[in-house]
């Protein structure tokens, strides 16, 4: 295997010295909002919205600067300070602004800013709105640390930071027991993935003596195959936890308990894609291990079908979208697992998905806003007249995700399916089927929500949301439409140096047999959904069914049941046994010792009889004994 070319970042100059402000602005926002208390209630949401907008502006400036540079000088390292110095270890914290991370910065701060604006309206009547914005800012800061770090250990700081923010925001309505439980579940499942991350970083430190991207990339060529495989699988475990991929997928559906802007920002557009970022960033490791990259492909393929299946069976609008998110991230991971041919497509789909899924989640929030926070699609229907703007923007996001020609999903998903076919026919066919199923469940969602006849209750009066919520919808819908057209020809060449791939000629009118069959499948999915849900109408309660497919889908494919049977119950059993052993063996031993000593003291205390003369006798006897010992000692 030819050694990989290692990209050495150029030194930061000019504006890049200020790159730390990208992170510092939202972090400062979070601190001010959390520390200022009720004093900040009146203006907290405005400050919280300004901070990511400031980061976005700085990100755009840096992006334009990078665009103006020649290809070799587009990775800029910004050393910050020495993070850890102990014994022989020296770990520096620094930022890496390159072609890959700047795209993430723009996505996070851009979509993040829109969602902040939207939240001003969505959370307007929540008494804890200031705290909500503080957590959102904290999330943005942590996510930026994650993507800007130049070192896996610093990346891990952001990795944990987004986990914390996600936990706080899922459980934001902590008075609801379901939300509190969902937050804990997300946290615990993420811990499993984080364990993989920690072990992978330890392995890097042990193998390369450093966890900096440059050192790992440089050393990757010399490490053994087994080490590379273990490292790759551990990184994949971390990615599975954060990105809700099988087998660590169970938390994402419950995470929908959080406020809808949170679902849009964290659980659709940005945080859950961190796993894809990790795999692409660690491409040097995955290049050297066939096993781990195959595992990535398998996980991606399984999850894309898994999520789509769940999406077909749910009646809760947010859970359908959550299943869809899992499925789309499965596509990204599949592309990332294919290797250099797929990295750019993974990031391409990640960006377009960020647009259209954030758009649809915010649209779902707008629908819930109109329907008194009801999420049950069977009680929607015919909302297109009541919510024209939401319908239009959601519809564009819908067309984008099913891959309607010339919209963003059409380009990004088609690339992945084609790359999958070149990689392996089975994977390609499964990815293609996934596209058809996507079309089916998204059409079902559209039909149940916006079309058909009205099924909502008498007292509900759906109304369009205020402008502060609809403007972000319109912007994101526009991005969903043009995202593919704008990025398609450009992104592969742009990312090529950062992910060490060769760029191909891309064309907007590129059309292959694979794309044709995919389109046919998509059309079939739409038609099937129309037959089942459009023409026939939708009953207000979920029809009872014996179909094992539907039952499995409604129960999240038994993910929770599996975890409970395999991990939770045996775990509880183990704890119970250990607890009893502790009580009887360890605790019993110590209590017995104590009891014996207490019994002896009961006897011993009788010596204290209160008669001075008997004490004197004891003393004299003692002195006598000492004297005898002394004398005997002298004689001996």
């Amino acid at each position, binding site marked *: 295997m030819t050694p990989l070319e290692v990209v050495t970042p150029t030194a930061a100059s000019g504006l890049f010295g200020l790159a730390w402000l990208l992170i510092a602005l939202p972090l400062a926002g979070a601190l001010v909002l959390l520390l200022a208390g009720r004093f900040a209630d009146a203006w907290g949401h405005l400050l919280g919205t300004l901070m990511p907008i400031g980061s976005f502006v700085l990100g755009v400036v840096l992006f334009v600067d990078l665009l103006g540079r020649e290809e070799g000088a587009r990775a800029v390292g910004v050393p910050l300070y020495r993070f850890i110095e102990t014994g022989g270890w020296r770990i520096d914290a620094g930022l890496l602004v390159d072609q890959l991370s700047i795209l993430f910065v723009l996505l996070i701060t851009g979509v993040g800013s829109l969602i902040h604006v939207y939240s001003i309206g969505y959370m307007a009547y929540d008494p804890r709105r200031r705290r909500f914005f503080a957590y959102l800012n904290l999330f943005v800061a942590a996510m930026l640390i994650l993507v800007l770090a130049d070192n896996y250990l610093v990346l891990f700081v952001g990795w944990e930071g987004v986990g914390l923010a996600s936990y706080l925001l899922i459980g934001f309505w902590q008075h609801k027991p379901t939300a509190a439980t969902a937050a804990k579940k997300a946290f615990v499942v993420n811990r499993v993935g984080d364990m993989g991350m920690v072990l992978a970083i330890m392995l890097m430190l042990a193998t390369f003596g450093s966890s900096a991207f440059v050192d790992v990339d440089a050393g990757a060529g010399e490490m053994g195959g087994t080490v590379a495989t273990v490292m790759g699988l551990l990184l994949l475990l971390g990615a599975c936890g954060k990105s809700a991929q099988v087998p660590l997928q169970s938390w994402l559906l419950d995470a929908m308990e959080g406020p809808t802007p949170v679902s849009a920002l964290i659980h659709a557009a940005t945080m859950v894609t961190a796993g894809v970022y990790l795999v692409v960033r660690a491409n040097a490791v995955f290049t050297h291990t066939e096993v781990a990259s195959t595992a990535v492909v398998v996980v991606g393929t399984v999850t894309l079908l898994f999520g789509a299946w769940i999406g077909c069976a749910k009646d809760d609008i947010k859970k359908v979208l959550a299943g869809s998110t899992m499925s789309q991230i499965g596509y990204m991971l599949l592309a990332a697992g294919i290797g250099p041919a797929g990295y750019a497509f993974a990031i391409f789909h990640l960006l377009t998905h960020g647009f259209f899924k954030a758009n649809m989640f915010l649209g779902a929030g707008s629908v819930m806003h109109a329907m008194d926070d009801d999420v049950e699609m069977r009680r929607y229907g015919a909302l297109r007249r009541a919510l024209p703007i939401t319908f239009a923007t959601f519809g564009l996001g819908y067309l984008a995700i099913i891959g309607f020609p010339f919209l963003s999903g059409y380009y990004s998903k088609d690339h992945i399916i084609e790359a999958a076919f070149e990689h392996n026919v089975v994977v390609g066919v499964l990815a293609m089927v996934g596209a058809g199923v996507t079309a089916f469940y998204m059409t079902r969602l559209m039909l149940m929500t916006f079309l058909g006849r009205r099924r909502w209750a008498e007292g509900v009066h759906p109304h369009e949301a205020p402008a502060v919520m609809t403007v972000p919808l319109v912007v994101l819908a526009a991005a969903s439409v043009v995202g593919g057209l704008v990025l398609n020809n450009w992104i592969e060449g742009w990312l090529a140096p950062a992910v060490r791939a060769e760029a191909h000629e891309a064309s907007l009118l590129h059309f292959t047999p694979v794309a044709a069959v995919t389109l046919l499948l998509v059309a079939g999915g739409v038609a099937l959904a129309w037959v089942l849900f459009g023409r026939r109408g939708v009953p207000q309660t979920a029809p009872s069914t014996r179909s094992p497919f539907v039952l499995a889908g409604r129960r999240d494919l038994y993910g929770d049941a599996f975890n409970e049977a395999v991990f939770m119950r045996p775990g509880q059993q183990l704890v119970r046994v250990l607890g009893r052993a502790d009580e009887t063996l360890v605790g019993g031993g110590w209590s017995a010792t104590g009891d014996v000593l207490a019994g002896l003291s009961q006897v011993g*205390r*009788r010596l*204290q*009889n*209160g*008669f*001075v*003369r008997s004490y*004197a*006798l004891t003393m*004299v006897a003692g002195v006598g004994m000492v004297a005898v010992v002394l004398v005997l000692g002298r004689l001996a």
Partner: protein
Amino acid sequence: MEPSYYLVLSAMLFTIGAVGFMVRRNAIVAFMCVELMLNACNLALVTFSHAWGLLDGQVASFFVMVVAAAEVVVGLAIIVSIYRTRRSASVDDANLLKF
């Protein structure tokens, strides 16, 4: 001068004091027995001091006397106070401090 006479006297005085302390109930007598033991010790200290030609023992006996004087002050006060409250000077009657 033969030190053994003094030492024998000292031992006899100490024994009388120790036995008296153990057998007599009257607090005043018990107290006098304690003094007797202390003075027996003093006698032994002075004897050894003289025999070795060193002053250490004599200095130590001064310390013993000071302690004995202080002890008398405190001890007699306690005895008088017990007698006033319990109408008895018997050491066996003052037996509340026990298991």
